[in-house]
């Protein structure tokens, strides 16, 4: 079995199935680098939708930058629920700088050149904010039949073409299949939501006991000449201690007796 591309797989008529594949995702560490981070490499608390897409693509063995269409807004939907308390610590690292002035270019002139960080230079210190033992439940709907079937097979067999990780390749992850569940749409209403709350920050009802945080993270990507571009972000509200959040007037879905919001 070798890596595959998605060419010719996009099917305009694909509609989302009425079931989702649910799995648990956990690891000792996680780092989902925030785009606005600078000196301190901060992390999102909730695994971004784009990272879930990348993780599923890795399990399937899809080529880099080849899968964004299959995870587009019309043909995929994803709900994420943090199932363990979200906690971070700082893990500073000394790394080789990849800034242009610290790269060695070989040969120094000519039209075929390669640049690599100069390993004899002093290391740069970066402060990585990392998640400690992050754990999520992911509910995933994919319109593409072939991808969905292959992903379900991987989940059932406990296999992954490329080993899954949580943001950085050294943050090895474990995936546990929870099953395939019906996705039942619910009318707009005020209800407790188990998953992260998407694009409804203003509708969240605050309670004194529940700490709620909000982050804005990448949701969709598209391939371009240089690799990829984020095409949309979404606002995510979550309770730091993973309890359900009361949200007014929202559209939700029921999955496995839980209320979730898909994007």
């Amino acid at each position, binding site marked *: *079995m*070798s*890596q595959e591309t998605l060419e010719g797989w996009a099917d305009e008529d694909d509609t989302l199935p009425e079931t989702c594949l649910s799995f648990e995702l956990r*690891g*000792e*560490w996680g780092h989902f680098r925030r785009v606005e981070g600078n000196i301190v490499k901060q992390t999102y608390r909730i695994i971004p939708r784009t990272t879930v897409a990348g993780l599923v693509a890795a399990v399937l*063995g899809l080529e880099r930058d080849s899968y964004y269409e299959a995870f587009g807004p019309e043909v995929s939907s994803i709900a994420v629920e943090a199932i363990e308390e979200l*906690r971070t*610590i*700082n*893990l*500073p*690292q*000394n*790394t*080789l700088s*990849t800034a242009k002035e610290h*790269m*060695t*270019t*070989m*040969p120094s002139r*000519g*039209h*075929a*050149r*390669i*640049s*690599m*960080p100069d*390993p*004899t*230079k*002093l*290391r740069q*210190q970066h*402060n990585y904010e*990392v998640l*400690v033992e992050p754990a999520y439940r992911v509910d995933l709907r994919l319109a593409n039949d072939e991808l969905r079937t292959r992903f379900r097979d*991987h989940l059932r*067999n*406990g*296999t*992954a*073409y*490329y*080993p899954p*990780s949580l943001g950085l*390749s*050294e*943050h*090895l*992850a*474990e*995936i546990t299949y929870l099953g395939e569940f019906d996705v039942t749409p619910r009318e707009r209403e005020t209800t407790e939501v188990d998953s992260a709350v998407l694009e409804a920050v203003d509708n969240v009802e605050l309670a004194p006991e529940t700490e709620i945080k909000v982050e804005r993270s990448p949701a969709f990507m598209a391939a371009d000449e240089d690799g990829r571009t984020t095409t949309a972000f979404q606002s995510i509200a979550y309770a730091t201690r993973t309890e359900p959040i009361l949200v007014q007037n929202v559209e939700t879905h029921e999955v496995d007796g839980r209320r979730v919001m898909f994007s």
Partner: protein
Amino acid sequence: MSDNAYADDSYEPVTNRSEIVFCYDAVDANPNGNPLSGANRPRIDPETQQAIVTDVRLKRYLRDQLDDDGHGVYVQNVKNEAGEQSSREDLLESRLRGLEPEDWDFDDLDDEDEAKLREEVFGAFLDNSADVRYFGATMSVDMKGSYEPFAEHLPDHFTGPVQFSPAKTLHPVTENEEYNSLTSVIATGEGKEQGGFDLDDHRIQYGFIAFHGLVDEHGAADTKLSTADVERLDTLTWRAIKNQTISRSKVGQEPRLYLRVEYKDESFHLGGLTRDLDIDEDRSVPTDELRNVREFTLDGTELVSRLDRHDDRIARVRVVASDVLDVTVDDETYTAGDEVGEHGFYDVLRGAVGDDIVEVVNVYDEAAATMPE
């Protein structure tokens, strides 16, 4: 990338995925300082009090051991001579200079041609950079003019097929207080007469550290990681902790348990094996009194039962345990045997996954065979 990503007849590609459990301990040492704290204090999780060791630290030990063994290493220690380094850059440079766009029919490059091209440009570099084969490297490829079509057929980075997660101790640790304000009688710099003072030196009293690693058989071909490279890990990790922990803050560290589980089925690994290890609190002294391995007992019950449950998917288990490590499995404590190469834990493993599946690593005999020719 195809399975034969590089055209090199002597290259034996990795076909099986491996999961690695690697434990070592630290006595009165700073197993991994935090460079952003005042005195490079040990990294400790403020909530659980477990000490943390980054993958970067472990990889440094492994790179230094590879270097000592005479393997080519690309990412060298700043302290080392940079002479060796330039030869690897020279290799890349001469390959790039030798590239002729006219020699390649870019509209009609099949997998075989691509493998040839990659071998031409990066083959020798990878052959001479053991660390890049294991852990990858960052680079950027810049092709201009008539060279532009090359870019599409050459990798723009090397992802390491061998990954280790940052590790934690299996138990809370206690920081040493005795060395808090060390004063040095040696001048702190050239031209200075006075010794340094307030050179804080923080250590932990005892830590049993467990690393989790993975060898990705599908990423292996991207960096020419060979079967021999993977087998080298069985002796390299052990010797690296023995030999590369000689600086002041790193002494007192010893390898205790190494386990490489090689899986039969493609794309399969159990995952999180290190998490199945625990400290056996009933047979260890209280964690705040732990001072050395003789006061510590490892609980391997979960690990063994998990391997047992999935024994049909395991091709082999390469294992080595320190002769002073005690391991409990199902309430029974196992210790080293009378002869070198014997440990009760090996027998338990044999009972769980099969006699012929378990291979005990003879670190020093085997190491000789993994040295560069």
